[in-house]
């Protein structure tokens, strides 16, 4: 497997979950498209559109409408803002979850999840998908962050990519069984 030409990723603080996840996320976002995995922007686009609608409601209520003359319309904008904001929160909680990138594997839309539980040293990389309306395939691999990061905070690209490719093969096998 040939390593794509990606800049070194470094976690600023090895004890910060945010930094570690950020480094891994940036790596996957840079490397996977260069390796030929097609990105699926559907849910990201939906999220962007919903956020833009929220911000439009907010801008209109804040800068155009005047209180108390347009009190009812401000109320409508506030309700609309929180409705769409709730939809964004729903998508974040139940669809995107901890996904760092969404790609196509064997023609299926797959979310690549990178997770670290609080106060834990383990990083879990997972591939998550729905096959049809009811069935879903999910594979993951959990190991210590020391497996991926060196003592200076640099991400070991070969190691993380090797584990990712094993997961892809496992996912394809699971998918062919389910299908």
């Amino acid at each position, binding site marked *: 497997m040939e390593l794509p030409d990606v800049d070194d990723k470094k976690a600023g603080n090895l004890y910060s979950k945010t930094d570690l996840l950020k480094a891994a996320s940036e790596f996957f976002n840079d490397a996977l498209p260069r390796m030929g995995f097609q990105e699926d922007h559907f849910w990201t686009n939906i999220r*962007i559109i919903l956020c833009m609608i929220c911000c439009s409601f907010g801008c209109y209520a804040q800068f155009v409408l005047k209180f108390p003359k347009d009190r009812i319309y401000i109320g409508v904008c506030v309700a609309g803002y929180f409705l769409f904001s709730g939809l964004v929160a729903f998508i974040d909680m139940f669809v995107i979850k901890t996904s760092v990138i969404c790609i196509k594997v064997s023609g299926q839309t797959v979310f690549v999840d990178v997770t670290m539980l609080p106060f834990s040293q383990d990083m879990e990389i997972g591939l998550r998908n729905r096959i049809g309306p009811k069935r879903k395939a999910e594979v993951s691999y959990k190991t210590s962050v020391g497996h991926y990061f060196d003592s200076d905070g640099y991400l070991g690209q070969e190691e993380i990519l090797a584990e990712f490719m094993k997961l892809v093969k496992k996912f394809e096998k699971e998918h062919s069984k389910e299908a």
Partner: protein
Amino acid sequence: MIDLQEPYELHIYMLLTHIRYIHTRCILVSRLQLLPTCTRFQEILRQYTNELRDVAKRPRSFLTQVLNLGCIVFSALMLWKGLMVVTKSESPVVVVLSGSMEPGLQRGDILFLSLYSEPFIPGDVVVFQIEGRDIPIVHRIMNVHEKDDGKLAVLTKGDNNTVGDRGLYATRQMFISRKEMMGRAQVFLPHAGMITIWLNDWPWLKYVLIGSMGFFVIIGRDT
């Protein structure tokens, strides 16, 4: 021009040279002592600048982060607007800035206001803003006069003041009217608003807090 043939001029020259040497050494030592701190600060600045540059290289990710920041800002604004709609008051939450209502209301207390259609009666704690003045006032109603046409004339006074508020009103204004009323105090939270007073006293703190929060959201460190 020093003539070094003369002994006293030689002494002066050596003294001046020695002073210059000590001065240069002091500057060098102090700069060397500051060097680790400056270097660390520069490293952090370089790291954050690189992170911002990396975010800007991915337009979709940058747009997502900007929209996230927008949603965070508008969540606070929409919450405020929602309170305005529900309470019918232009400023549903205020902070007591002075001690004119002590001992009942202290400096830093937060008041929740409403402006429903119930009539104003003496004893109500109200917030009003005189035209042309920036800061609203929280005081208690002493007298209420209602004319036949429904116009209201209200006299207020701070609990801790010895005289009424006519000195605070505009020139030749004897009473305040309904349009100057911002709301009637319904609930108060003691001392919860001290941070507002600090941000008022040091405005630069506001910009530093909001600016740094916004920066961290943009570079993706909002968790």
